[in-house]
């Protein structure tokens, strides 16, 4: 039964995205040209990567507000490594960024798992600590385009079958994590730990440890996104992606991830990200000031969370009806 509701939720969101595209296309047909849509997807790729990690964290009844700061810190670290050692091949840089991001995630995870500190407090704290650390590392200076090696900058733009590698990485992450969430013990443990922690404990799942892995995965994805972001825009500085953690949470909530844990899909998180990505790309096209962006995503979060709550209530009623029929 829940599966049907989830499906309908995603169908609803796909419909909303189609409607949004139709409205934009009615006045600006060029917006839905395949090349432009591919650009929009590519622009949204970082949000999709972060939203997948955030979804897993939210599934376990936690929240990770440090993702944007993690992204910026890891981005600065790989940028400085690149400046110091321009010869280091890109795959090594990618491994470093994933590893370093995961390490930052481990810090969050250990504080939540071993000390049982509420996740919102932990990640609010690490968010400011990570940002401050970037300042200490860089002395407040920017790493600019000309300082990076060419291969470092070229990687996310390299085209493969008509799409940049950045888009392919997002697609690969969506496929990989769809498999992980539905076909592995750890993936199911994320749902169990958030859906009903007590039952999960009795079923032999270490809830704290599951939350630890969620933060580690979220951190690793944020680290990878950090490299992609810095190399794509060819700049690293303290306030990189400032406030982006709210977009990530918004993408999840719009994508049907329940903030109380246990409900959500990778596909939904991707759709939520695309919804926000299309809006931010369409605003300049339809001649609305980009200053509207913040209010629109705020409004979208509130509407989405109301819809989420409604969906959950319906589910409860259906169960009651079935119970009535059964007796």
């Amino acid at each position, binding site marked *: 039964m829940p599966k049907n509701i989830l499906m309908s939720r995603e169908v609803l969101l796909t419909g909303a995205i189609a409607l949004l595209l139709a409205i934009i296309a009615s006045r600006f047909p060029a917006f839905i040209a395949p090349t432009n849509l591919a650009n929009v997807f590519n622009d949204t790729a970082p949000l999709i990567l972060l939203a997948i990690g955030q979804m897993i964290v939210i599934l376990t009844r936690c*929240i990770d507000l440090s993702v944007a700061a993690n992204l910026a810190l890891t981005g600065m670290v790989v940028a400085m490594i690149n400046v110091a050692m321009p010869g280091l091949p890109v795959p090594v840089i990618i491994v470093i960024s994933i590893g370093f991001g995961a390490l930052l995630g481990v810090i969050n995870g250990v*504080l939540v798992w*071993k*000390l*049982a*500190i*509420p996740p*919102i*407090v*932990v990640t*609010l*704290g*690490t*968010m*400011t*600590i990570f*940002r*401050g*650390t970037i*300042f*200490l590392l860089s002395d*407040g200076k920017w790493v600019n385009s000309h300082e990076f090696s060419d291969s470092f900058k070229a990687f996310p733009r390299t085209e493969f079958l008509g799409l940049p590698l950045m888009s392919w990485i997002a697609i690969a992450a969506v496929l990989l994590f769809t498999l992980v969430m539905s076909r592995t013990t750890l993936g199911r443990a994320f749902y169990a730990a958030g859906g009903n*922690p*007590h039952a*999960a*404990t009795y079923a032999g799942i270490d*809830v*704290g440890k599951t939350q630890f892995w969620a933060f580690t995965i979220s951190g690793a994805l944020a680290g990878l996104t950090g490299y992609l972001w810095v190399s794509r825009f060819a700049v690293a500085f*303290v306030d990189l992606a400032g406030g982006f953690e*709210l977009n990530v*949470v*918004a993408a999840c*909530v719009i994508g049907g991830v329940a*903030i*109380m844990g246990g409900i959500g899909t990778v596909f939904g998180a991707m759709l939520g990200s695309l919804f926000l990505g299309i809006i931010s790309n369409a605003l300049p096209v339809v001649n609305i*000031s980009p*200053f*509207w*962006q*913040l*209010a*629109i*995503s*705020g*409004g979208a*979060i*509130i509407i989405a*969370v*109301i819809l989420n*709550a409604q969906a959950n209530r319906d589910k409860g009623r259906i169960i009651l009806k079935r119970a009535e029929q059964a007796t």
Partner: protein
Amino acid sequence: MSDTSRSIPDRLQSPLERRLKSWETLLLAVAVAIFIVNSFTSPYFLNAWNLSDMTFNFTEKAMIAFAMALLIIAGEIDLSVASIIALASTAMGAAVQLGVGTPGLVLIGLGVGLLCGAFNGFLVTRMGLPSIVVTIGTMSLFRGISYIVLGDQAYRGYPSDFAFFGQGYVFWVISFEFVLFACLALIYFVLLHKTNFGRAVYAIGNNAVGAEFSGIRVARVKFILFLLTGLMSGVAAICLTSRLASTRPSIAVGWELEIVTMVVLGGVNILGGSGSIPGVVIAAFVMGLVTFGLGLLNVPGIVMSIVIGALLIGVIALPRLWENWRMQAAKR
């Protein structure tokens, strides 16, 4: 640590009151220590006017922190407070352009704060939504409206008598803001510790369902708490706007973090159910002293934020580490 001990904090082992008292004494000792260290490290610290300037570091944030403390004790949170400041300040700025005088500006500031609080309260208590997502949403929404109205512009030209709220002094070095801070501290102390309403706040935070069955109108109390938090954000918006004499949409960015830090540092349990106003008052002084002392030593603001982030995690982690260590020692 198993999950059951996390979701049902065991309060019976250590009497609540004794523990709170010891927390506040500890915090007071920290404040005194920072004061002494500061007066040794910088020759400019021990100066009445400098110390008076120091209070501006925390008075506006602390006003919101009092209401936020009650909200967190009741098991909810409001992350939109800084955005309410932005929206209230923008509304006052717009009113100035229409020629509204100081009394009107104050009413508008308080009114916008109340409206925003009512909106949050409605979504949380009537629609039954989790406060953390709702206020992350309204945080974007409220500040977003400021951005729509102002863009990259700023409002200036506040009337000269409006400057009193943020720049005026009542007596010698005692600023109006500090007096207001002290009065509000007293009001919230009485409200939380001496009234039925305050007991209801604790009851809801410890067990909302139990409170409901004991005849407490949980939804109404929570709604009032959101209203109060909105109102305090309006008060802070008046003081801050008056002090800066200008409004930009980026006003008070990131304050929600510092306010939550202040509340948690003051010994309020982030999961709800316990905490006190004196703790929050001392925490306000600790944070003001730390940022002011570091500022006198030319430490950049962003490095101070590391200290504040570390304080936030440290004050919660250390007692738990200590307890873990004690329990293990007891087992042996």
